[in-house]
């Protein structure tokens, strides 16, 4: 039984929305980051599913790149969260709000 392409899209959309929900509600920087990773992986699901659907490998290869870049992004992000903690003694993303208006 082949699963229809629309279900993959639905799955990835659900994952994307879960990630988005996390982004909007989590105040912990790490959770924020994880939520973003969810969104990226939602894209990966899409890419691989469509690669299968279209019968070319472009999407799969791109998914690999996305993963690598996501890792790099996490690395940079963790560094920033580290200095955030050092400066604010907290990893709550809503705390640093000195610059506004």
């Amino acid at each position: 039984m082949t699963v229809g392409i629309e279900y993959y899209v639905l799955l990835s959309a659900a994952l994307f929305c879960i990630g988005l929900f996390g982004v909007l509600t989590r105040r912990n920087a790490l959770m924020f980051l994880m939520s973003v990773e969810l969104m990226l992986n939602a894209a990966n699901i899409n890419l691989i599913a469509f690669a299968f659907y279209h019968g070319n490998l472009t999407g799969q290869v791109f998914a690999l790149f996305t993963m690598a870049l996501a890792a790099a992004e996490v690395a940079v992000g963790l560094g920033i969260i580290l200095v955030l903690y050092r400066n604010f003694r907290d990893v709550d993303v809503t705390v640093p709000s000195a610059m506004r208006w």
Partner: protein
Amino acid sequence: MVVFDLSEWTWTAMGPALVLALTALALFVFDSINPRSTNRPVVAGIATVGSLASLGVAVWYVLAGVGHPDTGGAIDLFGGQLVVDQMALFFMIVVAVVTALVSIASYDYMRDHAYQAEYYSLMLLAATGMSVMAASNSLVTIFIALELASLPSYALVAILKDNKGSVEAGLKYFLIGALSSAIFVYGISLVYGATGHLQLEAIAANLDGEYNGLLGVGVLMLIAGFAFKTASVPFHFWAPEAYEGAPAPISAFLSSASKAAGFVIAFRVFTTAFPLETMTDFGVDWALAFIILAIVTMTVGNFAAATQNNVKRMLAYSSVGHAGYALIGLAALTVDGGELVLGAAMMHLLVYGFMNTGAFLFVALAEYWGVGRTFEDYNGLARQAPIACVALAIFMFSLAGIPPFGGFWSKYFLFTGALEAATVNPALLVVAAALVVNSALSLYYYSRLVKAVWIEDPVLERETLTQPAGLYAAIVAAAVVTVVILPGFGPVAELAYDAAAMLVG
């Protein structure tokens, strides 16, 4: 004309980006040899020489006609993943110029900083990313280059580790950036789903109207990614904070080069992969999206800038406003063409690269002096530093679009281009009107700064101000170009129009 044959070594067409990458690696190697040294002259020197070399190569290529229709047209690399044409070279020049100016200025600004080599190598890596963005011709390369440009930028904004402002800015920039890149890559996946390809020409060839909804959402998500990179409303929220909190040279770098790079991929993607005619048939009228974005961005940017008290933040918002002006380049594209207005947007980005970089570098100078951040703190600076303040006045008036300076011309061409396109699409009249209204408003807050510097009396007595050579050199160079670009506008305009014509035609 230099006769230059790239047929054997086509990858050398990426020369400007390669030079930047090699310079970044060289800095890493240099720093690995003696990690504890902070040899500022050598490090800053390598960065400056590297970026100037990149500029030199790019200018040489332009003069030699690389990618020009007369010499065989655009050069495709790696199966069309990269393409080097005149627009690519044009933006490589913009990136290299800004990088060079910022490198020179950083020599003084970052004088007490511990991570010298890291700072410059991150900057050059980001510049490499931007340079590659200019030549990217596939959503894969675009995404990779975009991330290559973004990731070092996040680190650069937060590089003042003990400065709460810098860290806050870095965090916000990073979080919004991560969110935007997730949206962007999801958009890519949707476009891939709708067409089965990621290479831009292949996408255009495979638009069959089967999955319009998918395609439409995907295109909107791509727009979101570009809007983030170019700091366009509603993806601009990171910009005021990031520019305000970051070290001022980095603000200059991001608001000029990064923005230009964001625009170049937007130009390329939307003209190459999504021909307006086809897309309008499919119900995906992206030009309309850009019209809305342009108007909103201009208005929000300029209005928010009008009542700022912090100079850097004012410049940050004005940078948002200028993104709106440049968006006209895409908004005014019509089915019949529009290379004029696209070329005008490219010119605006070039001129902006000088005047905005210069303006932020003046802020860097003020921070170097430690005079403070608000307009009042800047009062009467002209008495102590007339040269820099003349340069500042030039930048401000050019940003506002006052005639003799470069900023006027590009804005003028944008305006006429929008009016011309309005004959096809009346909505552009609104855009043109918004351009005029916002320019008028922008004059208010730009001249406020000039007034503070030249007319007002200092609130407090200041000690004599030093004249850091690097910062001064960069500021004066930017000011000189902002002025002399007027007589030089012929060739610049020609190049921009050629580049735009290749893309649209």
